[in-house]
């Protein structure tokens, strides 16, 4: 269960599907599903690249896709070098992050087994989350960042924002003192509502506000260059999300099945809700709206996938689409430029899911229990928001003043593809 703490106060029986362990303690079935989940989460990265890449102008498509791809490169190396250690080592520096020198280059876990699977698989599964989070964030500042600055930014951001948050929420050590503090408090975040979506969304928003709008940005003048690719990407994201959520059970049993089921349902509910809202509000239900609803539903169920019932999934998905839709209307009023709505979908959806999940938890819970958990969830969300916002602001500030993060006006006008990569995405539209 991805080091997830079951609702401490509740009396819910812990369901574990104990496969049969061989001598070396490995359950081949669980290992198989976790290998698959790791693969599926990796699939989300090109999926996200396609989703985002279709939404930008054709002169920025490769640059935007590269924001996801480069995360696969640098975040993997960073994870193997120190990220896993900072996230899943015992707390150091008063719990700011973790550390375990065995984890440097994963040297100490070459043959170790945990929860019935080789620890490598757990480390790789978790590493994919460290990749996708900055890739999501990138959507907020799309079409206007310098590639070199971006690479440095996600590297530093991973160290200072992602790893600590991951440690706080997901690391449960043998002792309370060495565990993440939000984890010890009993904050529920099954697959990354706070760690992934809120942190990416809020950080993206802060960066977007600091860096300013794209040149000539007016709400209502954007034209996605390839919505068809965006739809493909949405499809792959949905598929990959099964690994993201159901894999976070670190099982191949009931909890896994429950997570997969509510993931499917919340995605559908979010999509249908958005379609209806937009249909009523605008008279037409757009494909991008439908895809946005899928995402809104998936994001909201992410923290909740281990705890809510199918009914809860329907409500969370619907609510998330509603709130995200409202959020986008407000964004367009305010006129700030969260280019691809990283905050608008991931930030808001993550907040909705993380907080509202308490009302739909499986099993019997007294009102007191629910509100106690409600308080914990709100606390965890606030911590995530404040920490991500403050630290991101610092990082962006420093990088902008040194290497430069915002693309120059000339580079932005010429497009990221030409300016930073010397390429063109769609040669096919020109003769030859």
């Amino acid at each position: 269960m991805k080091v997830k703490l079951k609702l401490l106060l509740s009396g819910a029986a812990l369901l574990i599907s104990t496969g049969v362990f061989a001598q070396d303690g490995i359950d081949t079935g669980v290992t198989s599903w976790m290998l698959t989940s790791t693969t599926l989460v990796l699939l989300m990265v090109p999926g996200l690249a396609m989703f985002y890449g279709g939404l930008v102008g054709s002169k920025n498509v490769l640059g935007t896709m590269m924001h996801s791809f480069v995360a696969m490169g640098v975040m993997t190396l960073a994870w193997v070098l120190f990220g896993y250690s900072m996230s899943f080592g015992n707390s150091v520096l008063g719990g700011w992050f973790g550390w375990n020198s065995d984890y440097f280059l994963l040297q100490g876990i070459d043959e170790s087994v945990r929860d019935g699977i080789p620890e490598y698989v757990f480390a790789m599964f978790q590493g994919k989350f460290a990749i996708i989070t900055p890739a999501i964030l990138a959507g907020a500042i799309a079409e206007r960042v310098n590639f070199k600055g971006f690479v440095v930014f996600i590297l530093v951001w991973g160290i200072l924002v992602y790893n600590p948050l991951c440690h706080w929420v997901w690391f449960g050590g043998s002792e309370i003192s060495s565990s993440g503090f939000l984890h010890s408090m009993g904050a529920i975040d099954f697959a990354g509502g706070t760690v992934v979506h809120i942190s990416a969304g809020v950080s993206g928003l802060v960066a977007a506000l600091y860096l300013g709008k794209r040149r000539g940005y007016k709400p209502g003048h954007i034209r996605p260059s390839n919505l068809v690719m965006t739809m493909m990407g949405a499809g792959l994201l949905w598929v990959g999300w099964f690994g993201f959520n159901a894999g976070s059970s670190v099982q191949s049993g009931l909890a896994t099945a429950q997570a997969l089921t509510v993931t499917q349902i919340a995605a559908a509910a979010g999509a249908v809700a958005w379609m209806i809202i937009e249909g009523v509000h605008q008279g037409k239900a757009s494909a991008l709206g439908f895809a946005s609803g899928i995402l809104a539903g998936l994001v909201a169920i992410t923290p909740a996938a281990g705890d809510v019932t199918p009914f809860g999934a329907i409500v969370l998905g619907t609510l998330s689409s509603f709130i995200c839709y409202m959020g986008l209307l407000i964004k367009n009023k305010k006129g700030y430029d969260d280019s691809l709505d990283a905050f608008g979908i991931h930030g808001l959806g993550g907040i909705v899911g993380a907080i509202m999940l308490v009302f739909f938890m499986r099993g019997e819970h007294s009102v007191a229990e629910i509100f106690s958990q409600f308080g914990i969830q709100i606390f965890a969300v606030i911590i995530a928001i404040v920490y991500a916002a403050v630290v991101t602001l610092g990082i962006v500030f420093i990088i902008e003043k040194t290497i430069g993060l915002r693309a120059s006006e000339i580079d932005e006008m010429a497009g990221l593809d030409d300016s930073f990569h010397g390429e063109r995405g769609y040669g096919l539209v020109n003769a030859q």
Partner: protein
Amino acid sequence: MKLITAIIREVQLNKVHEELLKANIERITVGRVSGHGQQKREEIYRGMIMAPSLIPKIKIEIAVNDDYVQRTVDAIISGAGTNSVGDGKIFVTNLEECIRIRTEERGEKAI
């Protein structure tokens, strides 16, 4: 000889083509362009109606002999007209020479 260039709505292309064939104008060249005129076209982007500044249009070019100009223009108008802003324009310029590459024929018979 004249060169007739028409900027029309994408959706009217089929109909214009049909009208031209009816009027025995068989040879045309068609391309994609985007235009800015009086028309405002609306698309939906994540729940917001937006008006792109450039609207996709079709450009048709037809080289004709002088006595065909009027019927070509009429065919285009009858195919492309919807009586609403954005129907487009027809431009007529003088064509000094026309050559069929295959045969190297020139002038009116090459049209």
